[in-house]
């Protein structure tokens, strides 16, 4: 059994959901990591959950990066540890410089409203990263989003690098898996819904896989993503035991 650390910052809302889903559906251990401490409690992987850290004041995720726990998470990532930022977590990792680019105010193509909570479709770019292994090629997954500042932006040079290194892991698409402008819910560059860093151990995605894991809620496409994560972390842990 693995032990996942879920960072809890004042204003995190999806920490309870993430811990519940990891424990009850993915049968792993999951513990909250209070932002004021820097003890990772020997966790095998870290999740920075969704929510409105510090009320999303100033910029979404801006105020949450300065805490002992985020310094510890940065250290853990530097040593190759797997860190996954979901929605607000993705914004925090970008603000902290652990992931390239930024998440800007949505430019809903057809309406001025920026915040929206609904199901969208996304497609995995490849199947060789911790969040995408085992996802059938070309399969459109139905995953909910809930954000107002999710428009991924990076300058041309960074964008080119992301494409070249295969650091783009998810893109918004229609229900048949085609990447179209209409299926882009927030105006993200190239329909980007999720990316990872160069060493492919730090991940960020705006959609919420933990909200599509419990069959009581009528949609379990999130299992493709979170089961892939569990499998990868298990494999990494087994490797490390053999080596050390």
């Amino acid at each position, binding site marked *: 059994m693995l032990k996942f650390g879920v960072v809890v910052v*004042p*204003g995190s*809302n*999806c920490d*309870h*959901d993430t811990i*519940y*889903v990891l424990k*009850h559906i993915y049968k792993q251990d999951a513990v909250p990591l*209070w932002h*004021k401490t820097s003890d990772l409690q020997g966790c095998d992987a870290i999740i920075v959950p*969704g*929510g*409105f850290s*510090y*009320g*999303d*004041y100033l910029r979404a995720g801006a105020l949450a990066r300065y805490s002992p726990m985020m310094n510890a998470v940065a250290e853990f990532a530097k040593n190759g540890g797997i860190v996954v930022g979901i929605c607000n977590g993705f914004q925090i990792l970008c603000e902290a410089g652990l992931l390239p680019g930024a998440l800007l105010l949505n430019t809903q193509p057809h*309406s001025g*409203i920026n*915040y*929206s*909570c*609904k*199901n969208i479709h996304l497609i995995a770019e490849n199947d060789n990263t911790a969040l995408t292994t085992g996802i059938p090629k070309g399969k459109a997954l139905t995953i*909910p989003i*809930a954000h107002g500042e999710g428009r991924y932006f990076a300058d041309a040079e960074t964008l080119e690098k992301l494409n070249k290194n295969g650091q783009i892991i998810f893109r918004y698409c229609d229900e048949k898996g085609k990447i179209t402008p209409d299926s882009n819910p927030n105006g993200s560059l190239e329909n980007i819904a999720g990316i990872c860093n160069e060493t492919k151990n730090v991940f960020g995605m705006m959609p*919420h896989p*933990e*909200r599509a*894991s*419990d069959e*009581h*809620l*009528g*949609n379990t496409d999130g299992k493709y993503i979170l089961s892939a994560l569990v499998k990868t972390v298990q494999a990494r842990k087994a490797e490390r035991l053999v080596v050390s």
Partner: protein
Amino acid sequence: MEAIAKEIKVNVETARQLGLSEDEFQKIVTILGRTPNYTELSIYSVMWSEHCSYKNSIYWIKTLPREGKGLLAKAGEENAGLIDIGNGYACAFKIESHNHPSALEPYQGAATGVGGINRDIFTMGARPIAQLNSLRFGNINTDKTKWLMKGVVRGIGHYGNAFGVPTVGGEVFFDECYNVNPLVNAMSVGIVKVGETISATSYGEGNPVIIIGSSTGKDGIHGATFASADITEDSAESLPSVQVGDPFQEKLLLEASLEIIKTGAVVGMQDMGAAGIICSTSEMSAKGQSGMNIWLDKVPLRQQNMQPFEILLSESQERMLVIVKKGREKEVEAILEKWDLHYAVIGEVTNGDRLKYYVHGELVADVPAETLVLGGGAPVYHREFKEPQYYREFQKFDIDTIKEPSNYKEIADYLLTHPNIASKRWVYEQYDSMVGTVNMSSNKPSDAAIVNIKKSDSALALKVDCNSRYVYADPHKGGAIAVSEAARNIVCSGGEPMAITNCLNFGNPYNPEVYWQFVEAIKGIGEACTEFNTPVTGGNVSFYNQSSYEGPVFPTPVIGMLGIIKNKNKVMTLDFKNEGDLIYLIGECYNDISSSEYLYSWHNVKEAPAPHFDLSEEYEVQFAVKEVIEKNLVESAHDCSDGGLFITLAESAMAGKLGFDIDTDTSIRKDAFLFGEGQS
């Protein structure tokens, strides 16, 4: 802090200025045995205001049934009703209005409404897990309505989303009568283990009184019947005209409150709603039959030179009052520091029933707690009521005066796209409906919102409902319909109606015809609650909802109903499932189009009685539907409501991406059959 209130002459005139009548002033003089000083007068003026004392409504509210299965906290006992939902859990739920602040500043008005109702839930130790809201606006084509609606929906969205409780259901309704005075009712539902609740009480001599959360400013002072501009030296510029909500601070308050309750060191807790410190200190003391010494100079302030009455009456948001067991303050303070919350010990509990307020050791107010509160010394009035002229007129409506239409398709298109009937996705997609991973209706819609109770095998069915047009046409029948329709929605979702909370939005109670609407609606609600055995666990009254030149808004008693689905695998949804399934219409059809959207908007005929409704018939239909669902005999169930049978069928068809083929009942008019809104 230059603290001492200026010595202002207090007499009947000052009292009237503060909204108190002459005999109310005399009553205060008798209670205190002397003329009150200015601070004491302002205390009574806010505690005996309609908002805090319910003086013009409590008599009739008490006639509503308040006993019933699973009721752990009766209406009025606690901040919110408490129902036993099995598996060792109880559910606290309540609905409240923030109509007038939202008319002034829609974004903050609605946001602080959401903040207030959620505090009523977690102040009892329950974690809010779901929110609903009921919104009413004027004509959707006016700029004013567009401005109001944009602000209200954004305010609810921002506050609710940042606070992290999913908005799982609600209603939006448009009618001219709400042009100037929108209705913004917010409902919150929370879960707590039976026995782990905290009461809003205060006792135990010497126990410290601690204020937690935001500092106190001059917010909303004239929100509680106060005209004090000429009394303070500050210019009006220092009087904030609107309260600003901070959902981030509220989230910290929620987590900290639930944590300090678990320490067992908390005697009592209450959130600061209307009339802030004076309301919480007096209500908690009266409930615990004890007194308090309060040092106002210890209260953390956001603005300089605040008068004692301003500190007492301030309605600054996101503040709680907690009574902690003497000697165990440290345990509580450690948790408050963990969550970066400001706090200060501002007083101590005393024996007896006197509330003594000091500023730097000088006594500025000394009043008996019991005499301030609802159910204690606060006045109770019986207003006179008179049946209005229009009521008789409306009953005279005759269906034959309406020509049967030839082109039914045209009417169907009109109704399907009417703002009161068309999908409200453009509204609710601005709310986070999925945080908490409990919303079982996100991908499979039912009539009611279904919320999963994670550590048990049951689920909650939640609904807010009121057709104010029916209530205007016939308050008695309309009130009964509001309860029955909420119950119908819960039954169609596979649930068992348990209890209700209500938000009674009416006009000016001193207008006898408005008060007649209020009394008749209460009687109708009471009868229906008795029939369905759904007791009233509490709620809120909002009077003075006027549309300035057009008289009062429609009488709008919004019902928030809680139902239980014992086995969460037996939730019933509303979408058609398979081609070839048979469609049953349960209940009688009548030649009745009264007060339907079809008659009111398409034919523009506004004078008509409420639609056909019979309480016992309604109960029989619901009982039958409940049994049919329990025995797994149906694929879907959906109730007939606004727009009539055709809209009900269209909604089920669209949700299931299927069509339907029906024969109309030749014994009644086709438009009545398709678009009539006869109940049950």
